[in-house]
């Protein structure tokens, strides 16, 4: 099969759902294409960072509307007051972000570009690259990656079925916020895992120069990244766009044979040419699953710290304030509450989860 075009490789970087199975498979197995993919990823990241403008997301639409109103020649209706965020102004694409975060919690270990889990319809309309939201770094240029596990999230009839299938208690929301109603759809995903086998040969090829001295036992040593099972309750508008997502999953973890995971991680981080996004993901990964691996795209999402039931929690809010989510880890289980809501609303729901 001929190589996919550079345009296909580019789309794999930030909209892999739009790339055909055949092309994905080819790229996964083709060193030439993997090199091209890495280059495309790096160029996209650097250019994206260069075009980023600090403060551009902090606009005041109400003030801007006043300014526009005075410039308009005639205006029948008076300017309307800013609407509540949880109203009809919800932006579907942003709302889908919450679901992607849930998927990343549930499917972290399986989150390579071409993995089926990220081809689900729910993630397809994302504004944010799923790559940005998942924690398993793309290490295929540095060794062999073998993925095993669930075929992807699927729906189950009710909370009891979700509990039976995953062994997890499904969080119950006592009071739904305004703008969210009806019954949720329950989705589950089984345990997923990936085994990464470090290859000095591949790493040297990826770096384009001789490697630093290898720690003893590193070449050929294996790292297993595991995540799941997970469950999510998803409330949607009649259009199908999610408005509230409550998800829970066994937190991702890493283990290794041979040398300690930290040795593998730190060596990879020391390599020249390691794409910055891969490095950022690697840094969030710890051997015991105690760190929440949610690298977020800084130009679209702001993070802050909060507490849920006295546990440290990470609050994510899209810079346009259309979406907020809170994520925390309790005894190896990660829980997320997110939706087209304000941060106060998601924190309120999180505190009251049954």
């Amino acid at each position: 099969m001929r190589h996919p075009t550079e345009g296909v490789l580019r789309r794999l970087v930030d909209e892999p759902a739009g790339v055909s199975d055949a092309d994905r498979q080819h790229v996964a197995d083709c060193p030439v294409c993997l090199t091209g993919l890495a280059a495309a990823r790096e160029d996209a990241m650097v250019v994206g960072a260069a075009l980023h403008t600090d403060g551009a997301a902090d606009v005041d639409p109400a003030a801007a509307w006043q300014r526009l109103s005075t410039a308009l020649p005639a205006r029948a209706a008076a300017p309307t007051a800013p609407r509540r965020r949880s109203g009809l102004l919800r932006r579907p694409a942003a709302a889908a972000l919450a679901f992607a975060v849930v998927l990343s919690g549930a499917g972290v270990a399986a989150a390579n570009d071409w993995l089926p889990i990220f081809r689900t319809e729910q993630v397809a309309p994302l504004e944010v690259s799923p790559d940005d939201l998942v924690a398993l770094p793309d290490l295929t240029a540095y060794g062999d990656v073998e993925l095993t596990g669930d075929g992807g999230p699927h729906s189950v009839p009710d909370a009891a079925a979700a509990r039976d299938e995953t062994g997890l208690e499904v969080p119950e929301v006592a009071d739904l916020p305004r703008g969210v109603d009806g019954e949720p759809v329950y989705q589950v995903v089984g345990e997923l895992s990936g085994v990464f086998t470090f290859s000095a040969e591949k790493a040297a090829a990826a770096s384009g120069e001789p490697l630093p001295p290898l720690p003893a036992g590193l070449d050929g040593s294996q790292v297993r990244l595991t995540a799941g099972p997970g469950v999510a309750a998803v409330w949607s508008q009649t259009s199908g766009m999610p408005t509230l997502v409550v998800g829970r999953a066994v937190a991702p973890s890493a283990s290794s044979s041979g040398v300690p995971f930290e040795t593998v991680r730190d060596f990879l981080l020391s390599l020249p040419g390691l794409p910055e996004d891969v490095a950022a993901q690697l840094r969030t990964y710890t051997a015991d699953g105690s760190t929440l691996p949610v690298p977020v795209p800084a130009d679209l999402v702001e993070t802050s710290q909060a507490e849920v039931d006295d546990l440290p929690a990470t609050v994510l809010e899209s810079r346009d304030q259309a979406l907020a989510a809170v994520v925390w880890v309790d005894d190896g289980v990660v829980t997320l509450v997110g939706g087209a809501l304000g941060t106060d609303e998601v924190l309120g729901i999180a505190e009251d989860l049954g």
Partner: protein
Amino acid sequence: MDLVRRARPEAVLALPGAVQRSAGVRIGGTDGVAVPRSAASGAVRADLDEVFRREYPRVVGVAARVLGSRDSAEDVAQDVFLSFGRSSVPAGEARGWLSVAAAHTALNLLRSGRRRASREKSAAAADDVVAPDVADAVVTLEERRRVRAALARLPRRQAVALVLRHSGLSYADVAAALDLSPGSVGTTVRRAESALREELNRHASSD
């Protein structure tokens, strides 16, 4: 084949209040002229406030990626929404139209160097005081200036596709907004990124 051509945002460039039309640039259809709907009576479209509140942050974001300054980007957004308010662009195409219009207007502004000096200064000052973030770690302020200068020299379609994709429009949205096939969006964006990256590397190696 399109049986009906929709008004294309390039017409924004020809309206009073917007920056000058750039010669020879043509994105979209061959007859892309937005007819002011009720120019005589001066009325504006009824859904303007709704579209404005929904799309304003994105339109500012598109222009800011080109200009590197929020203030300048908000000026561009005002022009773009003013033109949109007088147009009869279908509501379903508003996002693409507004985004393309913002990109064109901002690129014209960038190219003509009409950004006010005070604005540049204040934007640069703002850049200097913000806390380091991921973007700062990767590129310096000087590199951002170089990238924007290179952006102004790119083929217009490449530049617009690049900015729209980085502003969060999906490949399908970019394709629809620019009359491209979805398959060619990736190629167009890739070429633009490759050219900008080369520009950065060229300077880096000559430093």
